[in-house]
């Protein structure tokens, strides 16, 4: 096959090279659009001391929450970690470090990391604890703080469909942080529900161009729902 064929055939192969104390950027919002099988594989590998950059840390027993069970996570960079009792327990016990980052700033830090922008100014967090230790600068009469970008040794991403070249599209709001994470990993691994041949996806409709993707794998997904809310039909 072509040198652009990113498909790997096992989760072992997908995560080969992940080592203790590395930084992993993960897509997903809550339990929506999370790379469930890649997370499960990290649990199986038992890698320790990880810094995980992800908007949330899953829930007890699912998503990134399962990496707390064997204390594989040293530090979380997240905007919201309120869904997880084990997280709270490890945080209060001083076994886990957390760097709380506003959600939009977190998204932009990932994008900037992938785009070769080392830092940017934002009004978000000015005058709050988030601004502590950060440069403040005025532009056009308003105060902004300097935020540095994020890159990871690995990025783990959940897509919907991808072609073998690693061109990915996401489904509905399962997109969220995934395309940003995809740009910011030294090695980016995408797991998807369906792999198609190159040429089957419309070029203008690709969310993550294959240039960002190193390894691609087809998985099956539980897609657990966090807050099941319905109306009467």
């Amino acid at each position, binding site marked *: 096959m072509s040198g652009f064929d990113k498909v790997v055939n096992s989760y072992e192969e997908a995560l080969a090279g992940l080592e203790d104390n590395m930084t992993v950027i993960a897509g997903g*919002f*809550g*339990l*929506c*659009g999370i790379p469930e099988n890649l997370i499960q594989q990290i649990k199986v590998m038992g890698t320790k001391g990880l810094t995980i950059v992800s*908007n949330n840390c899953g829930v007890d027993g699912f998503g990134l929450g399962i990496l707390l069970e064997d204390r594989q996570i040293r530090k979380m960079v*997240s*905007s*919201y*970690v*309120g*869904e997880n009792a084990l997280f*709270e327990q490890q*945080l*209060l016990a001083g076994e886990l470090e*957390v760097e*709380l980052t*506003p*959600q*939009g*700033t*977190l*998204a*932009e830090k*990932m*994008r900037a990391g992938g785009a070769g922008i080392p830092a940017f100014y*934002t*009004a*978000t*967090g*000015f*005058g*709050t*604890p*988030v601004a502590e230790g950060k440069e403040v600068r005025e532009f056009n009469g308003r105060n902004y703080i300097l935020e540095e970008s994020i890159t990871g040794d690995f990025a783990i991403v959940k897509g*919907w469909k991808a072609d073998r070249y690693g061109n990915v599209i996401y*489904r*509905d*709001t*399962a*997109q*969220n*942080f*995934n*395309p*940003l994470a995809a740009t910011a990993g030294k090695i980016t691994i995408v797991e998807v529900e369906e792999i198609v041949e190159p040429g089957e996806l419309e070029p203008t409709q690709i*969310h993550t161009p294959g240039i960002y993707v190193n390894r691609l794998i087809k998985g099956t997904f539980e*897609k*657990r*729902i*966090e*807050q*099941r*809310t*319905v*109306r*009467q*039909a």
Partner: protein
Amino acid sequence: MALTREQMAMRVARELQDGYYVNLGIGIPTLVANYVPEGMEVMLQSENGLLGMGPFPTEDEIDADMINAGKQTVTAATGASIFSSAESFAMIRGGHVDLTVLGAFEVDTQGNIASWMIPGKLIKGMGGAMDLVAGADNIIVTMTHASKHGESKLLSTCSLPLTGAGCIKKVLTDLAYLEIENGAFILKERAPGVSVEEIVEKTEGELVVPDSVPEMTF
């Protein structure tokens, strides 16, 4: 009588205009969607990447890939668009959302807001709240005027860690609608049957009371 949660939502809904893009926070703000005036359309932005949030799904429609910022299953309205978190906060931070409604623990006369952290209790995180208050020109804070113990939440200086500095101009409490101008709360409207005296008593920060303070009607 203090406003009910439903009345608070109804009062906020009067600030809507046809064609507004609106971000509604969790709790009372979410209820505002139920009171969009007849003949008016607004489009709801959900910061996880959805512009044009529809109603909750029926059992048959439930889809794990379609949620809102509160992680609830939702649907997309006609004409919706769906995008990444970076695009979503580009909209928010860039000031493209017309109205943001969110809850708070405290607001002060400098327009500061504290809504995300109570030291000593667990820190869950700010989520998108800091981006929302920094990005919007037009924000309405909804909260009770005082705590259950009677302590005012409208202060001269917030006591809790801030969510945003100098960004709040409008507050709707269960007792009153107030605006923040020149370092003071201006009492604009009071809840039906609530006296100016009660509002004065429960407002710790400087409060300007105009000659006439109309009662809200529902």
